[in-house]
């Protein structure tokens, strides 16, 4: 087993909790726990909402309950689960690859590119022109294009350096955000309104066809990252260490970057930019389960799904009959919880290291 043991060369924030070796048993328990958690949250989110549905009437089909369940509640919960899973898995892949605790799907430029593409199409094309898949497809194309651009720009002597990658990603995002502001200032109010709503991000309702499509992309991206997870452990050690241990760094990094871009692109193209999930979920799970990517990547899949479904549930019921933007809930609930975990564990960590 090539578990990431405690080493002196690693960034503490990424590697601090790798103390315990990952055994088959702890792997199984970790996965089981997160999967059970995700299932429980999904069931909860299906049962509760702005309108109370009775399970017996959903089954019997009396009244509007079944209609609401099938056409509103279920697709929304499923989308929240897929998107949460995608963002968290991407974060779990990017953090060790970039060896940076702040790495998150928002930082590699992909979401900025997706948003810019969507906004430009919203600004230029007639209102009401779009079919269901139009803006999502444009956004996805923008995500793919920007990931290629960011990757190309961050090559130094043919190699993708983590620091360059992060800097290029951040700069790319900033430029995209500024361009969005420019576009937004130039268009008239009706268009500006649709742009703003796209940027705010939210779990919208989509048909099952779209949900299946996005599920395929997300499962594919997740499988790639699960396959890369042993290399991720080594990449977190630093390039030299990883190379000495036989990782083809460039290839591995390319695959992780591509898979993460795919995940983020698939997610943001349907929901707009939802921040924080990809940052917080891997960190929280790392603090609970340890930092071995072989467990962390699949666990983030379930953890991310549980987190976003839960946030969306809160968004739906907190101010019923209205709804809150889910992005606000992810930051409001995830932020304090994360700080709590950080504070609680910081002291023993420092002590043990000295």
């Amino acid at each position, binding site marked *: 087993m090539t578990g990431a043991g405690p080493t002196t060369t690693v960034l503490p924030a990424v590697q601090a909790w790798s103390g315990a070796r990952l055994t088959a048993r702890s792997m199984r328990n970790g996965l089981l726990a997160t999967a059970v958690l995700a299932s429980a949250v999904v069931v909860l989110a299906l049962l509760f909402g702005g309108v109370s549905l009775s399970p017996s009437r959903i089954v019997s089909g009396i009244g509007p309950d079944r209609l609401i369940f099938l056409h509103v509640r279920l697709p929304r919960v499923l989308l929240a689960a897929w998107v949460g899973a995608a963002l968290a898995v991407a974060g779990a892949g990017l953090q060790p690859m970039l060896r940076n605790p702040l790495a998150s799907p928002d930082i590699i430029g992909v979401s900025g590119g997706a948003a810019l593409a969507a906004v430009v199409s919203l600004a230029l094309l007639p209102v009401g022109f779009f079919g269901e898949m139009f803006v999502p497809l444009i956004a996805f194309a923008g995500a793919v294009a920007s990931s290629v651009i960011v990757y190309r720009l961050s090559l130094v002597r043919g190699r993708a350096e983590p620091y360059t990658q992060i800097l290029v990603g951040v700069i790319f995002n900033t430029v995209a955000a500024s361009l*969005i502001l420019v576009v937004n200032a130039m268009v008239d109010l009706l268009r500006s309104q649709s742009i703003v709503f796209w*940027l705010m991000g939210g779990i919208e309702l989509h048909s099952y066809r779209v949900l299946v499509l996005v599920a395929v992309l997300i499962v594919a991206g997740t499988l790639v990252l699960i396959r890369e997870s042993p290399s991720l452990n080594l990449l977190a050690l630093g390039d030299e260490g990883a190379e000495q241990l036989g990782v083809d760094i460039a290839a591995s990094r390319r695959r992780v970057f591509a898979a993460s871009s795919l995940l983020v692109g698939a997610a943001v193209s349907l929901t707009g930019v939802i921040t924080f999930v990809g940052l917080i979920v891997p960190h929280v799970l790392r603090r609970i389960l340890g930092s071995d990517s072989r467990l962390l990547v699949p666990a983030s899949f379930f953890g991310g799904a549980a987190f976003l479904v839960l946030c969306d549930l809160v968004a739906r019921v907190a101010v019923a*009959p*209205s*709804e809150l933007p889910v992005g606000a809930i992810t930051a409001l609930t995830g932020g304090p919880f994360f700080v709590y975990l950080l504070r609680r564990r910081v002291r023993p960590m420092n002590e043990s290291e000295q």
Partner: protein
Amino acid sequence: MSRRCSRPRAGCLAALLVICISAAPQRCSAASAAEAGAAGAGVVGEPNPSSAVDQPAGGPLMERKTRVASRVVSLVPALTETVRALGAGDRLVGVSDYDDSPSQTPSLPRVGTFLAPVVERVLALQPDAVLTSPTPANENAVRAIERAGVRVVVIRNEGSLAALRRAIARVAELLARRREGQRLLGAIDAQIERARGLAKRRLQSAGKDEDGTDRRPRVAVVVGREPLVLAGPGSYLGELVDICGGRNIAAAGGGRWPHVGLEAMLASQPEVIVDLSMGSERLGSRERLRSYWGRFPSMPAVAHHRLYVGAADLFQRPGPRIGEAALALVAMIYPPVQS
């Protein structure tokens, strides 16, 4: 990144309230835009074919065309007002969060806004028609409601008076209240003509027009302030300014709701400002608006106390009260002469 946009967002949302209200011709669904465009106006109001879930067997098309809405959810205040003005208020089963006129609204369930309808609540009311304005922000929700088999009548928010007339006619048809619709349109026309006549007389009595200079007062209708958004000439408010004998300082060509720089606004020296950027209901909002514009005492509108801030509701809802709005506007541009 989305954080960065928060300031313009607030402005946009405020300004949006204006448009939200605007209502005009129709098209059944955002989803079937292409079909509607191809087949022409005849299919207006036709539901998405996929929505024929609980259609009775036999001639569903005919069925749909003649079906009269009896349980209506309105996501737009202007459309709610239209339904009531047509004498069909009792068929409303749900309204939007923006529907706030307490005199009219018996406590009907609120189902979100046309920008963000809460689909679960809409469906829970088991409506047979949902009225809304089109915006990319609600396209997914509209599709979801249609997938659940409920007819959504999307009344396009193009903002012109002609569009508003078509909207009223369309709602009347949906409710099988054509005669009431004609009567309402007639009443609106009469009020608008009265406003036009009043403006014309006042302009003529001002006299001394031989040199051909445009003596109409320069008018700015502000729908949002941060960023500054005006009612352009192509919008229904712009049309009202024209009818009421005002000269809109928002130039043609900037779209219906153009963003305008504050400098450009000051340079154009508006003599009348109608500020709709904060609803009229909230306490203190009038004073805030007054002090906002009060910073520019040299602007003719401020210097001559021609700043109007209290009528947002009336102007922001292009519905049955549009004629009333025209009469109110003409009184702002040409205040009654005190004898």
